[in-house]
């Protein structure tokens, strides 16, 4: 019951999206109905034509010519309508796909980071790409086949009844047999298919894990062990695949056999009726071709229904994404942060990702313009949480964060975020040219500005050496660049816009130490007069900071400058001394 309800709901939403194509839809249905009727009419005409060919000398050529002319016109009309219908259906489907994708993508830009952080990106991508495709395909195939299928069945019934009710009864009674046969086989093979896909998933898992890490396998000489495990699964897969494939492939021969029985039965009753002069030979030929046409939609219907259900399931997943609560909208009276001085204060801030796991509690922090704040702590201590709050990727649970005296929730996100320059731990570059990546924060930058920024970030020399310099095209993961080079590009990006506040998240951890020296120099220049939050491992950075925040397990446990913290002889001083071991 519940499942049905969600299906109806989803269906309603689908129809809502289809609303603007209502005219095309009606046209499509109309064409489909006409096409089916005309297609079914042709065998009758052919039958009549055959009736005019009785025996030597008993052929009515004038009559035949008339009928053939009629067939010709009908066939051409049918073909035209069919093409139009197909084209319209394509148009509806592809535009629907486009609409839904656009909607989903727009939604993506508005979803809170808390949603995106806890849903694997692969899953969201597959909703927007695969699910939308399957939904549209399923809808198209399902809708057209279901409609034309039912129309064909009904039409055939009407035409057959008009010729001879008795033979029609034979067809109607026998045909559903094939449906039962197909259902029976599908039911019996379901478990075999499940076993097959489970085994296949197991094998893919092993392949994925081992081949991707082949170097480790080789380093530990585990080749034979792994081969043994692979072969064991491979043998199991062979036997369950064989069963699944063989038994499911029985469907076609079996339904075909049912069809031949129907065909023979129609042949028998038809011929007997013809002997009794109840129908003509042409009618018999007509019946025989109907017997074929009637069974096909019957065989298809069960698969069409699964297709439709699958399409609805996919649609439900997409709508779930589209209807996810977006981040709170901008307050109407939100202010624009202009020329931020870099004064930040955190007042009684509490925050946690999960209500049952309190993380930051009652944090107070006063940052004057131009101060440096180092965030220190073991890996995984939640250093990025603070950054999430400062840039309002997440909202505080209680308390407030003020920038230049204004609660950041009363500022536009755009103005707040563009006042920050950020270099994250995992460098991210977008597909595009190097230049496009650099000017992200300042699209109107001139060539001189770009080069100056690149020089300041020590990126100019390697960019120059790339095949097309600043116009070199890089892909998503920037595979052609080294980790260090990618990081230099991210730094250049910030260098170019020089925002009043900086967030540097272990920014230089994967650049070799010699390059780092130069970058640090550039950063010193960059940080001058700018409030900076630095997540750092380097002692020199930490020691020079105005405030050090020591974090452990998500909590800020110590706060103060280097000397103060050392004299506290707490966690920080331990950490510091261990470096000197």
């Amino acid at each position: 019951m519940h499942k049905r309800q969600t299906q109806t709901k989803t269906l309603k939403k689908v129809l809502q999206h289809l609303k603007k194509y209502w005219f095309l839809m009606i046209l499509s249905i109309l064409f489909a109905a006409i096409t089916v009727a005309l297609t079914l009419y042709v065998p009758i005409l052919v039958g009549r034509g055959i009736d005019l060919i009785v025996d030597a000398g008993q052929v009515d050529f004038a009559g035949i010519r008339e009928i053939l002319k009629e067939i010709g016109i009908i066939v051409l009309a049918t073909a035209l309508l069919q093409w139009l219908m197909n084209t319209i259906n394509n148009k509806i489907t592809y535009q629907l796909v486009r609409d839904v994708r656009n909607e989903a993508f727009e939604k993506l830009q508005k979803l809170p980071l808390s949603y995106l952080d806890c849903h694997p990106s692969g899953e969201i991508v597959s909703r927007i790409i695969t699910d939308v495709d399957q939904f549209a395909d399923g809808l198209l195939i399902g809708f057209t086949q279901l409609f034309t299928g039912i129309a064909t069945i009904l039409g055939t019934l009407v035409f057959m009844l008009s010729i001879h009710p008795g033979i029609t009864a034979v067809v109607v009674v026998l045909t559903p047999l094939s449906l039962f046969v197909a259902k029976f086989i599908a039911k019996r093979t379901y478990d075999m298919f499940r076993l097959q896909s489970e085994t296949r998933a197991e094998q893919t898992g092993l392949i994925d894990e081992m081949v991707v890490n082949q170097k480790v396998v080789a380093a530990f000489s585990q080749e034979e062990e792994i081969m043994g495990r692979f072969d064991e699964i491979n043998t199991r897969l062979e036997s369950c695949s064989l069963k699944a494939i063989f038994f499911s492939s029985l469907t076609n021969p079996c339904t075909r056999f049912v069809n031949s029985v129907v065909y023979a039965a129609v042949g028998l009753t038809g011929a007997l009726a013809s002997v009794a002069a109840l129908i003509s030979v042409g009618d018999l030929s007509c019946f025989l071709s109907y017997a074929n046409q009637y069974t096909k939609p019957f065989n298809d219907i069960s698969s069409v229904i699964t297709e439709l259900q699958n399409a609805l399931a996919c649609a439900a997943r997409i709508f779930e994404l589209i209807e996810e609560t977006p981040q709170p909208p901008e307050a109407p009276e939100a202010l624009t942060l202009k020329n931020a001085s870099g004064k930040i204060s955190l007042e009684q801030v509490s925050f946690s990702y999960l209500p049952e796991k309190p993380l930051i509690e009652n944090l107070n922090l006063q940052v004057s313009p131009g101060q440096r704040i180092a965030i220190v702590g073991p890996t995984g201590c939640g250093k990025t949480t603070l950054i999430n709050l400062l840039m309002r990727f997440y909202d505080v649970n209680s308390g407030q964060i003020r920038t230049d005296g204004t609660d950041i929730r009363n500022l536009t996100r755009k103005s707040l975020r563009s006042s920050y320059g950020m270099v994250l731990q995992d460098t991210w570059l977008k597909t595009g040219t190097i230049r496009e990546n650099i000017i992200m924060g300042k699209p109107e930058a001139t060539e001189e500005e770009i080069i100056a920024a690149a020089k300041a970030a020590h990126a100019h020399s390697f960019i120059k050496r790339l095949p097309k310099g600043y116009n070199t095209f890089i892909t998503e993961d920037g595979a052609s660049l080294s980790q260090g080079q990618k990081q230099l590009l991210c730094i250049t990006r910030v260098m170019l816009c020089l925002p009043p506040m900086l967030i540097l998240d272990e920014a230089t951890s994967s650049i070799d130490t010699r390059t780092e020296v130069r970058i640090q120099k550039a950063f010193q220049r960059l940080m001058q007069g700018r409030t900076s939050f630095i997540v750092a491992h380097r002692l020199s950075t930490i020691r020079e900071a105005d405030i050090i925040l020591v974090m452990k397990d998500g909590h800020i446990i110590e706060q103060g400058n280097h000397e103060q913290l050392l004299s506290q002889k707490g966690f920080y001083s331990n950490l510091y001394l261990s470096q000197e071991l």
Partner: protein
Amino acid sequence: MKKLLTYLKDYKRESILGPLFKMLEASFELFVPLVIASIIDVGIASGDKGYILSRCGILILLGIIGLVCSITAQYFAAKASVGFAKQVRHALFSHIQSLSFTELDTIGTSTLVTRLTSDMNQVQNGLNLTLRLFLRSPFVVFGAMIMAFTIDFKCALIFAVAIPVLSVVVFGIMLLSIPLYKKVQAKLDQVLSRTRENLTGVRVIRAFCKEEEENIHFKEENESLTQIQKYVGRISALLNPLTYVIINFAVIALIHQGGIQVSLGILSQGQVVALYNYMSQILIELIKLANLIISITKAVACGNRIQAALEIIPTMDRLGTASAKSVLSQPGAQDVAAISFCHACLCYANASENSLTDINFSVKKGETIGIIGGTGSGKTSLVGLIPRFYDVSQGSVLVNGKDVREYPLEELRNKIGVVPQKAVLFKGSIRENMLWGKKSASDAEIMEALTIAQAKEIVEGKEGGLDYKLEQGGKNLSGGQRQRLTIARALVRKPEILILDDSSSALDFATDAALRKALRSLSDKITVFMVSQRTSSIRHADKIIVLDDGAIVGAGAHDELLTSCEVYREIYESQFKKEAAENA
């Protein structure tokens, strides 16, 4: 693809019998219109009910024979294709196991995974379909034509014209749309990667307030995908209407011609019905054939990719029989050296320049060697030569005085514990992961290794201890925990040589220091190579080797290097600037 088919040789019988039975089924189907014709011409004409009944009995009999033939064929086809797939999968997987790092680098592992999984499934389906349908469809098409010729020559000529025209239309549309579908796929990939990119880079995009701009880009790409989809759609939408027209015009011609022949007394009415039925059969089979050919082209493309992977020749001889260029491995003075590099150079495949140039040093048993240098200076390449991940392009590397190329690969690698830069663990219990180091290790041995690696507390903190199940890639552990476990894994085998390739990068200072202390207590038994970017990690090493751009620019103890090696001093000062300044 051709060579791949040799894996069918165990299934010769099945792959011949399958199509044969399918053909048999088809030929029985071709009899049906003839039986109907005789019902009309003999049964109905003479009003012989018994005759009609017996003919309908024959129809059912034909159906039963068809069913039996077809089930037999399905079985053989399934058996051959599944067995074939199993053998190819085995061959490919075992081939991948024999590849050396050089080949893995050039091909990339992710494409190998695709070839083993989705490509393989495509090939299996393609083969199965081929065995089932490839003979059947053409047989029905041509069979129907031949049957038509046996009935009447003049009417059959209509078939002879209609079939080629139909084929041209069906295959023409197919050929036209296949490349277009590839374009659609490429566009779809674009849309996909933009979506993924927006997810992985969401913080950067929002930090730079690029949401609107991304929306616009996405819409543009999405629109151009829609346009090309509609274009392809319009072309492939032609298929059904066109074939419908051709077949029905052939039917018109057939009835017209049939009328003439009947009026001349050459044909009977029933025979005209039979010809009409043959015509209908042809259309269905041609469409099936076209779909089949699409699946086959896909399968062949996948098959070719698999074959290409199978044809990669491993460049490394695993048995160590290569009586190496051991001229260099003779000098007697190196007998005591546990490891020595003799003028070793390394040039990666497809690289134009050497990654390592003239590396020359030797190490005594039990020494700890630190290796330091900037990114890309060749640190990882250097230690990779010892377990023979790569072969030197010049010079040689000796372990216990013997060229590494003279050892059987497994024997060499069993002497060495490697902790790679990227901490990779595998799905399974912690114990199973530790046993990679040494198959026969006892729990006590494992715990000992874990203690040294500072990983004991991780195991103790987990439910089930050593039986704690790791997820794929060890995802349910933090980076630092994974790293410590990989160190323990290498220690379990009590290696002669331990290689730590920047293996403490994810550890905090305290743990790193404790680890180094524990390793030092072992070091008279094992020779340790420690790659690092931090001088603090290696400053106590017996010997530090400083690399710059693939060459050794300094070698010696910490204090020596501070005075003699400028690169080393620069690195050190960048990390201990203030301290150094104070000392001065």
